[in-house]
């Protein structure tokens, strides 16, 4: 790991529609271990936001506690960030979103944060369909406390220091699907080509977008006996599809072979082009997604890609019918009923 990075960037770095270079989306230098999967995910978030020409200051980054939750410092330095308490990021994100519906909320969490201490908050954030991207950087191990098994450690998987895990793992993708998540994807930190467009698709999705990213822990869980190691993932990863995010303005110029590509129109008019590698999978069917995951699992394969999407749902503000104006922008004029109204109320109490 390096403590300093050169601030020099090539003067002709490509610029996006806003005139920003990818440097404008970077954060502080990572203090994670060299080779940590989480750093690849940070890089993918930077790429996705740069390519989508997102205003960095219109993003709010939130996290809980743990190695994964440190990472919001390492991307989008011009965005406000909030490193909250262990497992409680979903509630903070919910409140933040209630107060200002016009920001893009990116939550970063880990498997300890999501599947153990924060399980209660996670499942309820899914249920409420809060408009946010929720990335679980899943390495199957507690890194900061030096290598204990987590709730997503696969049965029989063995970390560097541990015995084989005696417990059934929590499958966060399957759980999200059952809870009614409206966007569910599974990916691998070592496959940037797949991960970047998935993050873009999640950002374009209106509602709760869950991405589980297998992100190997090089220090405690990157051993041959672990199912969350680089080698294991490279050997066992299978994809249901690849995805292209197509912004509103772009026309579809490529013709894909019929029956293998499905176009999903997002709420803002952008598209996702899903190139199916698994012909039978219906991207709009939870049942199909769950079955396929089980089928692949039975063959020791880890199914990745966009597993499910429901692009027609209502997110929490729409369900609650809150005003289009962010609540934080309302003033005394809209909020305070005034002295006359209070005097009328007094009369009702006499």
């Amino acid at each position, binding site marked *: 790991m390096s403590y300093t990075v050169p601030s020099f960037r090539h003067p002709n770095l490509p610029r996006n529609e806003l005139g920003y270079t990818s440097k404008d989306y970077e954060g502080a230098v990572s203090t994670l271990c060299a080779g940590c999967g989480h750093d690849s995910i940070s890089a993918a978030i930077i790429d996705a936001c740069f390519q989508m020409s997102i*205003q*960095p*200051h*219109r993003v*709010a980054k*939130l996290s809980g506690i743990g190695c994964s939750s440190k990472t*919001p*410092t390492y991307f989008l*330095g*011009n*965005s*406000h*960030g*909030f*490193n*909250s*308490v262990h497992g*409680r990021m*979903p*509630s*903070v*994100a*919910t*409140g*933040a*979103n*209630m*107060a*200002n519906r016009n*920001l893009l909320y990116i939550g970063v969490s880990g498997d300890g944060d999501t599947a153990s201490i924060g399980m*209660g*908050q996670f*499942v*309820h954030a899914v249920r*409420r369909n809060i408009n946010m991207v929720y990335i679980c950087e899943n390495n199957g191990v507690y890194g900061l406390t030096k290598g204990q098994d987590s709730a997503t450690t696969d049965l029989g998987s063995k970390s560097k220091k541990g015995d084989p895990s005696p417990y059934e793992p929590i499958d966060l993708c399957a759980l999200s699907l059952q809870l009614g998540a409206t966007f569910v994807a599974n990916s691998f930190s070592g496959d940037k080509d797949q991960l970047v467009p998935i993050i873009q698709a999640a950002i374009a999705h209106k509602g709760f977008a869950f991405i589980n990213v297998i992100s190997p822990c090089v220090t405690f869980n990157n051993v041959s006996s672990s199912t969350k190691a680089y080698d294991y993932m490279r050997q066992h990863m299978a994809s249901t599809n690849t995805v292209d995010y197509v912004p509103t303005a772009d026309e579809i110029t490529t013709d894909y072979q019929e029956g293998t590509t499905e176009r999903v129109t997002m709420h803002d008019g952008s598209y996702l082009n899903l190139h199916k590698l698994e012909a039978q999978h219906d991207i709009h069917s939870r049942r199909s997604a769950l079955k396929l995951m089980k089928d692949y699992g039975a063959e020791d394969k880890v199914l990745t890609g966009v597993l499910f999407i429901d692009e027609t749902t209502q997110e929490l*503000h729409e369900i*609650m*019918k*809150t*005003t*289009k104006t*962010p*609540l*934080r922008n*309302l*003033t*005394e004029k*809209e*909020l*305070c*009923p*005034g*002295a006359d*109204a*209070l*005097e009328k*109320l*007094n009369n009702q*109490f*006499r």
Partner: protein
Amino acid sequence: MKRDIIINQFVIKFANINGTGSASANNLFSRGIFRMGVPISPKNIFPSNIQGLPTWYEVRVSESGFLGRRGGIDIMVSMNPQSMQRDIAEVDKGGYFIYDSTKPLDPKLFRDDIDIIGLPLTATCRELYEDPRQRQLFRNVMYVGSLCALLDLDIEVFKQLISDQFRGKEKLVTPNVKAIETGYRLAQENATCPMAFRVEKRNNVGNKILIDGNTAAGLGAVYGGATVAAWYPITPSTSVIDAYSKYCRTFRVDPETGEKNYAIVQAEDELAAIGMVIGSYWTGARAFTATSGPGLSLMNEFLGLAYFAEIPTVLVEVQRAGPSTGMPTRTQQSDVLLAAYASHGDTKHICLYPSTPKECFEYTAMAFDLAERFQTPVILLSDLDLGMNENMSEPLEWDDERTYDRGKILTHDDLENMKERYGRYLDVDNDGIPYRTLPGTHPTKGSFFTRGTSKDEYAIYTEIGEKYIENMDRLQRKWRTASKYVPKPIIRKTDKPCTIGVVHYGTSEASTLEALHHLNTLHGISLDSMGIQSFPFSDEVGQFIAEHEYVFVVEQNRDAQMRTLLINEYDFDPDRLVPLLHYDGSPITARFIRREIRDWILQTTTSPRRGSRFF
């Protein structure tokens, strides 16, 4: 029994079974007397149960306007055979016991030092109404009618109240009025009317209102500009959110689009509720949660984060009897220390202690200003007695000129024009309060990372000891600034120099002031008093204690928590602070306070230094 006639000075208690609709009949009784211009103070004493257990409703009628609990019962209206034995024993000598004579009174319960009045209420209901539910409901309304005759109440006032109550549902007016009239007739047929206790019309309530503290707090949140409420249901705080929700529906919904200028989230637990409040403030909206002791326990971790990361937070805490689940439907002031120092590490939080519904309204609205001014949690510490009982209160007031104090928030232009580097935790004004920015304000300036970890002035993570101390000391400076802003104590001095003072806060106020009045008029003891309104303590609090040799601290908990807080914050000699404690879950009574103070003063003349007798 030969009796004196007593006008407008008595305590009446209704013994009912919960879930039988008695609450609305009892409420009708109270409101009727209130409309007759006579001050009242009703208290619900109810179980944590939906149906079938004993519940009581105690009404203090006081021409002089004493609104605390007096102690003792003059009239018992016994409608619950389960609790009859206890209820009849509770009546003061010379009082009345009114029961449903459909079933004869057990001769073993009979007392010859009180008057016993039997009214065949159930039997009459059986004749008049077919539907069993109606029989139960109208039996309650019927005893209100009987009390009209027995207490010489103006029956027309009650008929008017019924027609006001059922405006729009006129079908219900006739049977209710019939029940009132039937009850009236039953009393005339079965008892000598009126009794010795009577109510006469007065003009003693002025423009006062009858409102519960939770409703007032909910309204305070509407007026104070809260747009996000996140909460988890818990007795006795639930009605704060009910009221907020009700008045938001009235005032905050666009009549054309139906769009709401507010959001209420029923969270999965209290941890999430406070997390949502903190998140809302982080992006810039005013938000609040309402809870009780068990919820406050769960919120500790997040309160520490809000204190340390300096995020405004507003919490309405309606205390109930602890510890643990305790007595969930009984009152106490036992979360004083928990609220003041909630969370691990060195933390402390602004607390406000309302005594009346008007203060619930004002302090709740004020809490939003204080929270944003000081970028820290503010806890309104109410209790079940104040929150869930209707209290006679000064009318609520609002100044239309008033604007919300959003505290130190940098705008886009502020940041644009800023030459120096922005530091989230820089003490620019030397008052301990730094400037904050909200997400989404400026493309390149003002962003920072909010964290619960130690950080320097620029919000950068640090474990350097000096930097940590600088930050902790600045928080302490901010705390001292806050002590100048929070409401000052209410000090009431006697005209004579006085070496003994009495300290009270919250719902101990009314009974304490009544006790002091009677100590003066009956025993010739006049004492200074101070009602503490807030934490941190302003200088006046310390001065008052310093000026008196001994100070009673009246409170409703076992461990003398406010006394502990005072000793901890001020280094007073503990012997000088005399605990006066009531903690059986019922509101403290004026008689109890008067007796305790009188006895202490009598005994201290022979053996001083009794301040530490409990410790």
